[in-house]
Structure formats: C-alpha cells, structure tokens
C-alpha cells in the first residue's frame, strides 16, 4: 500500500441549498466511513479561502494564489492504495464531483536515503 | 431612594457541584427574586457575568492573565442595582438572595456622593 495525496480544485459548496448541503455532507460521511473500514483513509481536511503565497529566496509574500475559485485548492485527503490506478478508481467514488471538481492525485514520495 | 449595588460572590467549585436539576431550580430562584424586586419597584438593572473569557489586566496592561479563577477565591458572578431608602433596607433585601444557595455572599455597596 502506498499513500496518495488528493488535491481538490474547485468543489465549491456555496451554491447548494441547506438541504442539498446536508445530503452532500452525509455522502462524505458514508464515503470516508467505507474508506476507513477498508483501512484506506489516512486524513485530510477542507481548506479556507484566504491564502498567502511566499515565493523565491527573497520570500516575496502575496495574497493569492488564484483569483479564479475554480482553480483554488479547496481541500485535500490522504488515502492508501495499491497503485496510482486504484487510487484513481477510489477518487472517482468521491462525492466532491457532485459539485464539479478537478482532482490531482499524487503519490506521497518517501524520502528514503 | 438611593441606588445600591449588590455584587454576588460565590465559589466556582460550589457551582460545579450542582446537578442539572439544582441548576434549573437556582435559575428559577433568581428569576423569582428579581421579579419580586422589579414588581416592588426596587430593581433597576443587572446581569450575571460570564465565567468564560475573563482576564485580569494589571500594571498598565503589561500583565494580562486569565482570571480571576483561583480555586480558593470567590468570583463575582453577577451584579444588580437596586433602589432602597437606606443601607439597612438594602441589607434586608439582600437577605433573600439566591446566591446563598451556593454558599455565596452579597456585597452591598453604595455610590459615594
């Protein structure tokens, strides 16, 4: 089993009515619940809108990173999967696609020396 | 008629010991007492003070501590301002105060003229 980081871009819940929102959150509960049961869930949280970008050796600080909310990272999860393909299959089950999301899946690289 | 301030002091630990039922009945005793004072035209205003988020600021603001909760000390749990003819009458009124139910005490003060 390897660890994979899922980076969610978009996935805004703002447009949902309260009822839709509750339904949506219930699906998250079910999904994370079943992942946990299979030992595939390792953590992760949604992220706030306010952000700073620190760049370069000079550590220039800007508000940011993107004005376009579609491209903003809205949250992350860490899951366990055998390989990138099965991580992709797992991600397809994620309720976040109900709210139009783009997910980047990256293997967590172990810095072994 | 003069204004008198009642400061209610009690031990935090006495409150902690109360059961839910006793807390509800204490709430009732305060309510009844204040109403009685109000109906007699003696009550001006007052409130309970929150036990959370209290700070003690000293030395021109250079020392700020969470407080004033020291186990052995009384804290001021609330105050009211009432009207009475004399200190004697004010003291008489204070004798009915529900704070005695939690082994508390009333400090009766009058403004300096």
């Amino acid at each position, binding site marked *: 089993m390897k660890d994979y980081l899922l980076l969610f871009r978009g996935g805004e819940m703002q447009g949902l009515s309260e009822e839709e929102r509750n339904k949506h959150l219930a699906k*998250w509960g079910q999904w994370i619940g079943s992942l946990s049961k299979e030992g595939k869930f390792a953590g992760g949280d949604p992220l706030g809108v306010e952000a700073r970008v620190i760049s370069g050796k000079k550590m220039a600080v800007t508000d940011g990173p993107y004005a376009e909310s579609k491209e903003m990272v809205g949250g992350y999860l860490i899951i366990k999967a055998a390989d990138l393909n099965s991580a992709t299959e797992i991600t397809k089950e994620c309720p976040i696609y109900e709210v139009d999301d783009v997910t980047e899946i990256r293997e967590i690289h172990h810095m072994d020396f | 008629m003069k204004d008198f301030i009642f400061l209610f002091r009690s031990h935090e630990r006495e*409150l902690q010991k109360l059961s839910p*039922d006793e*807390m509800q009945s204490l*709430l009732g005793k305060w*309510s009844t007492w*204040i109403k009685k004072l109000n109906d007699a035209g003696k009550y001006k*205003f007052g*409130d309970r003070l929150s*036990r959370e988020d209290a700070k003690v600021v000293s030395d021109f603001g250079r020392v700020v501590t969470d407080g004033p909760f020291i186990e052995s000390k009384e804290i001021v749990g609330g105050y009211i301002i009432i009207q009475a003819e004399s200190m004697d009458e004010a003291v008489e009124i204070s004798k009915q105060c529900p704070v005695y139910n939690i082994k508390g005490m009333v400090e009766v003060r009058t403004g300096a003229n």
Partner: protein
Amino acid sequence: MILNVTKKDSYENLASHLFRNEAGKMVSVLTRIFGLPRIEIAEDIVQDTFLKALDEWGFNNIPQNPQAWLYKVAKNKTIDYLRHWKHVQDYESDISHLLKSEWTLSASVNNMFLDNEIQDSQLRMIFTSCHPLLPQESQIALTLKTLCGFSIKEISRALLTTGANVNKRLFRAKQKLRDEHLKFEIPMGDELAKRLDSVYRVIYLIFNEGYSSTESEKIIRKDLCAEALRLCQLLSEHKIGDNPKTYALFSLMCFHSSRFNARIDDKGYVILLKEQDRKLWNKALIAKGFEYLSKSSYGNELSEYHLEAGIASYHLSAKSLDKTNWNSILKLYEILEKINPSPVTILNKAIVVSQISGPQAALEEVLKIKTLEKYYLYHTTLAELYKDLDQIQKAKTHLEEALKLTNSAAEISLIKKRIEELKFNRRFL
C-alpha cells in the same frame, strides 16, 4: 432604563426538569461520540453546557428554544474538543473515523443530535448502565447518573447511602465497563431478552426506591418514580422495547403511582391500604394504568409485571376494601408465587387469604414459611393476624421482634404505634 426582566421568555416557560432530562440525552449522545471509555468527557461537556446556560440566561433571559440552545452549545464544545485533540486521540466509537477529518467532523456531530439518534443513544445508555456484568446497586447508581442527570449527592439521598459510597460504585462500574471493553450498543438476537430483563429490573427498583422508601425526602422519592416512568416510556417508544412486558411494567408503575399521595401521611408514616382515603387516588394515572394494561395483553407472555399490574388493577377498581375482588387477586398471587416465590409475594398472598378465609387460614399459610424469621415484615404480618385472632400477647411479641429487625425510623415509629394500639385493644376486651 432598560429592564431586562420584562422579556417574554421567562423562567416559567421552562419545562420542569428540562435540565435533568436534557442532561440524560446529551450525556448519552456525547458518550456515543467519544466512546464509552471516555464517558467522563461527555459528562464534563454537559456540565459545562449547563453552567454556560446559567451565565448567559442571566436572571431572566431564557432563549426561545432552550433545548436547541443547549444542544448548540454542547455541539460547539464537542467540536472544539475534537478539533483540539484531532491528531492525538482515537475514540472507541462507531464514528471515530469521521471525527478525524474536517470533511465530516461537524456534520457527524450534528447528525448525532437528530431526534432519532438521540433516542438511539439513550437506549444504548440504558442497556450499558443496566449491564448484568455490573452489580445491581451499581446499575441503579449509573442509570441515575447518566440517564437521569442525578448528582452524586442526589443519588446518595435517593439510595440512602453516603456520597463516598456512590462515588466508589460509579468509579468501579466505569472501570468495569472499560476493562471488559464493552461496546456502547443496543444488544441484538438471543441476548436481547436477557438484557431487557435487566433493564426492567433496574427501572422497577428505581421506582420502588421512590415508592416504598419511607426515609428519604418526599421530593426525591417522587423524582425517582417519575424518572422510572420516563425511562420505561422511552423504552416503549423504541422498537426494541415495544413489547408487552414494557407495557405491563409501565401499567404497574402507573397504578402504584396513583396511590402515591394516599399511602403516606404528612409525617411520613405509611398508611395501610385499608385505611387509605380512596378519594386521594389519582384517577388519571389509574386510567393510564388500565390503558397500558390492555396494551400489555397481546402475545402470550405472562410476566411478573403483568401479574403485579393485574393485582393492582383489582385493588384500584374496588370501591372499598370490602368490595375488593379478593378471589381474582388470590389467583394472580398463586401464579406469581410460582414465577417468583419471593418473601413479599408469599406474605402478600397470606393477607389476601386472610380476607377470603379469615385470619386462622392465613396464619397457617404464613407459619408454613420457614425462611423469613429475620424479615421484619414477616413479624408485622404475623402480629396483624394474631391481633385479628385476639391473641394480643403473641401479636405483641412479634411486633417487638419486628422492632429489632428494622433500622428505618419511620418503620420503628409505625411499629411502636401499633404496640400502643394493642394495649388499647386489650383494655376493652
């Protein structure tokens, strides 16, 4: 000048015992979130919630919906706690995995405060508190603490023991629950019937503590009876407890409650059935008792609660002592004696025999019982029968024997009163 006492929602609008009932609900819900081994966190958060209510509701500033206010504060305190320890602590609960991520944390906590989940959590708490692994006296103390919101002091007053004793019982009970890794759940399958019986027993014992004790204060005794009725009702509203035995127990407790005010006088003395003012019996409770008695009659189960409720129903429907249907009562006692041959059952049966066939027949029945010589009610019953047979000296001997066997101040003075009456009796013989 703004007067903050003129606000509409004053203290009077608070349901009586709201805090006590909500305490039971919230402790149950939070124990389900934090897991049984961390029940203390649940209790602390609930206590803090009420203290905050005391502060913020001020002298007379009760929120429009006090229950919703309490739940909101408890939820927030719970979420704060979970966030604080998120990366450090694991919880032994069904939803522990959902508490580890912000994707699901607050929705899951909110979910637990929905009506059906609150009910479910309370049922889990009843079955856990009444778990047969715990000694019965601990089951009672734990039930009063967790579901009824009683403080240590209130429990010790109700059970006529010291606070230190109650503390010890609760501490050991919680330790036991931890050691045995008991799950906070509703039992299923074959286990259910046995576990339900344990719950019924505790409810009935709590009720009896309130109904029969002559020593504790009237107010706490009434509270115990009310709490037993509430717990039984809670059970009947859930599919798990919706069965004839639950209804029979509820009916029985309604019947007994209806005589609460008639059976004890102002000084705390027990008034015997034959001396009770039947006008003081509570008609609404009697009607409720009959309603549930008929509900309890479907199916073919005949439990001791059915029989005791049946016996009470004959007493309560009689216009006077003379008009009581003693023959029907005797039949029920005979079945009850087979199911549960307890000393009280046998003695009570003898009193019925005395009504039907006279004191001599009853005396013979009682004298057959060999195991009750150390039981004060055995001697008071004998004394009563000897008195009816004009054997005053024997009556006196047994009353004096009974005196040695009880420590209850109220019972002692009642027995002394009866000894006095014997003297009076003799003088006019």
